């Protein structure tokens, strides 16, 4: 069964190796962990409600519920990653031009519309699989250390495994419906994991918010699916993309509608304007969850969707411009909010939203490989940042627990000077910060730079529509990059540098985290350093930024993804003509790469000085910011705006429907029917007078009627 019923072998000899097992292993992990969680459900729920943690220093040490998930959880992930690796190396060797689709069974078969449960193995899905299983495995290992005090330990790993299962279905599905199954599934797991500590009302509400906002996006996704179906009659990737260029008019209304609805779906899942509001609230979940779902994998589903449907977006310049516009606007907007946040996780959340904006910009301008590249590097350094933040929070929590203090362990104003207590975390997080700021030679520099460059290249192409608009995008992208450098440096300075503000008592309890937690940090740090070297364009490689060809950099990823983006590139060549080789303000690729990295480095250094010089007040003594800072601190009041103009009217309408339409009118009608029946029955019962004479009278009248009728 795992080999599949009909593996359509393509050119070159790539034989998929147990692809079904990659998807199945996390599912098995979910079942085992889930069963264990159910067995201990009652005890665990009571502990959660009591807000308690397990007392692991007491007699018994690690409880029985912990042993199995510790091995099963990360274990199935390692298995999935290894199988993916085997397939990856196999695919590297083979020259694959067409995707390999492994069919298992027919899922939907109605008349002309069939969807089969099939997995698609091609270069794009392989990259996604590697990222998901690889980074996922590291995060599972980190969770073993982070969640060990939690009574819901098996439930946590069950949900985490289930999430990986759905994510793999999403990236490996061979048709849009199958992708949608994964899409919905990861939304569900996101809800379950955000509201993991469900006894706290706020956390449970955050889970609900995530799911409901996602739903709005799902609506867009479905409408796009319906439009695709009416156009092509099939929803398999092979079927749709094969007919796309002939079936859809370039720049036509239909393809624009499809892409805009897909954009709505992607904006919901990948937290772009206007549906990003759930992601900051989602920080209520455990930090490894934030790392996995809201940094490395789930939020990238929207980018994957656009990359997969690249030919559709290439056929619609309006759709692509919308994607790019939303992306770059979100990048700037989120960066401004991150400037003023005090919770370390919130800063990272807005940073994620901002970087997702960059990915959208990349796939929006037509640089699909660049967008996927940034997706990959972002997974590395953002996961590292979140896990590092998790380590910091873990240490702070431990310190506050020891002194029975109730201060906020996540507030950066309570941190400071942690570099002496947590050196490994400090170094690895600095590596990630430099990567995200776009400093050479770390990973983020190459990916972010390529996106910005392609904005100029495609925007200034021969027959490019909206070239002025793309110039604006380019400027905004650069501005956001500078802001990114600033707020990340602020985060690092407030957390690790300066004097410690946690408190004298607590400071004695601060220490580095255990190896099971810092080893994944180290692995991700290495990836953050060298991960960008797999997609360096020729111009840069041969310059001094690439060590004049001496450093082991390649343009491998771009070529690797060529079979995927070939169709879209064909459309672009046809309609856009020659791409530009200089930016809107002159200067080639190399020049601007140099300018942006030097500018970013300057921002980092200057902000270290500026922020390091200021005295920071601990959270309990701090005052509310004023002026423009207040607007940023309150996230531009977007949540309040939504609440006033969208949520409250809906609540009022619902209340009206409930109180007036349902309770009064409908219930009234039903009750009236009941009352009417009772009244009617009461009326009829008046016939029962109990008087014999009356009965005889009626009898006689009846006889008369019969006689009369028979005689007439």
């Amino acid at each position, binding site marked *: 069964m795992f080999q599949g019923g009909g593996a359509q072998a393509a050119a070159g000899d790539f034989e998929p190796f147990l692809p079904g097992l990659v998807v199945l292993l996390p599912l098995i992990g979910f079942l085992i962990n889930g069963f264990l969680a159910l067995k201990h459900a009652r005890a665990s729920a009571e502990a959660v409600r009591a807000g308690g943690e397990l007392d692991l220093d007491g007699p018994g040490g690690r409880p029985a519920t912990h042993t199995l998930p510790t091995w099963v959880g990360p274990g199935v992930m390692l298995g999935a990653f290894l199988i993916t690796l085997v397939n990856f190396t196999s695919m590297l060797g083979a020259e694959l031009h067409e995707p390999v689709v492994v069919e298992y069974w027919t899922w939907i078969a109605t008349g002309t519309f069939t969807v089969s449960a099939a997995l698609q193995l091609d270069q794009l899905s392989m990259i996604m699989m590697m990222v998901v299983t690889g980074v996922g495995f590291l995060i599972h290992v980190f969770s073993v250390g982070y969640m060990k005090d939690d009574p819901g330990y098996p439930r946590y790993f069950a949900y985490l495994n289930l999430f990986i299962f759905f994510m793999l279905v999403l990236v490996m599905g061979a048709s849009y419906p199958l992708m949608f199954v994964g899409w919905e599934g990861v939304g569900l797991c996101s809800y379950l994991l955000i509201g993991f500590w469900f006894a706290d009302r706020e956390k449970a509400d955050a889970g609900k918010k995530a799911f409901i906002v996602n739903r709005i996006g799902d609506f867009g996704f479905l409408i796009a699916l319906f439009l695709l179906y009416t156009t092509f009659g099939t929803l398999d990737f092979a079927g749709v993309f094969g007919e796309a260029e002939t079936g859809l008019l370039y720049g036509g209304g239909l393809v624009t509608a499809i892409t805009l609805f897909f954009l709505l779906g992607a904006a919901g899942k990948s937290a772009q304007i206007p549906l990003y509001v759930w992601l900051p609230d989602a920080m209520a979940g455990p930090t490894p969850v934030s790392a996995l779902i809201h940094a490395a994998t789930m939020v990238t589903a929207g980018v994957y969707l656009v990359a997969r449907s690249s030919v559709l977006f290439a056929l619609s310049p309006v759709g692509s411009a919308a994607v790019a516009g939303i992306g770059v606007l979100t990048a700037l907007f989120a960066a401004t909010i991150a400037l003023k946040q005090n919770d370390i996780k919130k800063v990272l959340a807005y940073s994620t939203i901002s970087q997702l904006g960059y990915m959208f910009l990349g796939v929006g301008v037509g640089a699909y490989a660049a967008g996927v590249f940034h997706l990959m590097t972002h997974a590395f350094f953002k996961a590292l940042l979140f896990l590092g933040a998790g380590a910091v929070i873990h240490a702070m929590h431990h310190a506050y627990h020891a002194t029975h203090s109730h201060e906020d362990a996540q507030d950066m104003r309570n941190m400071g000077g942690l570099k002496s207590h947590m050196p490994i975390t400090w170094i690895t997080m600095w590596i990630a910060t430099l990567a995200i700021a776009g400093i050479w030679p770390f990973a983020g520099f190459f990916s972010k730079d390529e996106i910005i460059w392609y904005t100029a290249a495609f925007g200034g192409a021969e027959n490019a529509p909206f070239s002025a608009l793309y110039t604006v995008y380019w400027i905004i992208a650069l501005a956001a990059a500078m802001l990114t450098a600033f707020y990340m440096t602020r985060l690092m300075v407030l957390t690790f540098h300066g004097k410690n503000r946690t408190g004298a008592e607590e400071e004695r309890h601060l220490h580095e985290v255990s190896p099971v937690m810092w080893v994944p940090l180290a692995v991700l740090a290495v990836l953050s350093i060298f991960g960008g070297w797999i997609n360096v364009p020729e111009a840069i490689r041969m310059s001094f930024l690439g060590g004049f060809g001496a450093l082991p950099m390649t343009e491998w990823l771009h070529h690797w993804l060529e079979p995927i983006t070939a169709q879209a590139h064909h459309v672009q060549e046809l309609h856009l003509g020659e791409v530009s080789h200089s930016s809107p303000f002159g200067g080639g690729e190399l020049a601007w790469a140099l300018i942006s990295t030097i500018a970013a480095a300057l921002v980092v250094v200057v902000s270290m000085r500026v922020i390091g010089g200021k005295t920071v007040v601990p959270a309990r003594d701090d005052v509310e910011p004023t002026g423009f800072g207040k607007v940023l601190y309150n996230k531009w009041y977007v949540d309040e705006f939504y609440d006033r103009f969208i949520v409250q009217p809906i609540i009022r309408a619902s209340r009206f429907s409930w109180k007036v339409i349902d309770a009064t009118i409908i219930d009234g009608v039903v009750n009236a029917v009941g009352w009417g029946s009772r009244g009617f029955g009461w009326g009829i019962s008046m016939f*029962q007078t109990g008087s014999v004479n009356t009965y005889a009278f009626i009898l006689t009248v009846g006889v008369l009627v019969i006689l009369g009728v028979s005689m007439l």
Partner: protein
Amino acid sequence: MITEALVLSAILFVLGTFGVLVRRNAIIMFLCIELQLNAVNLSFVAFSRMVGIEGQIFVFFVMTVAAAEAAVGLAIIISIFRHYETVNVNNFNLLKW
């Protein structure tokens, strides 16, 4: 003669029905029912002049059944009287709504 007998039978039957409808004494109501039966007997006998001896045979049976019915009916009325101390049917109103 037959027609006149039938007319008489009709009149007696109608009078018997009127008695059943109007009287409140249970025993008199019963008596009126007997009157109705007699009217029917008369019509059977009249028709037997047309049809055959079967009419009179039927009257024979009707009388027998009437006797049995009278016996049982009166026994019931006695039973009820023991409970209600009256035979006024207006008082037998437990089935009233």
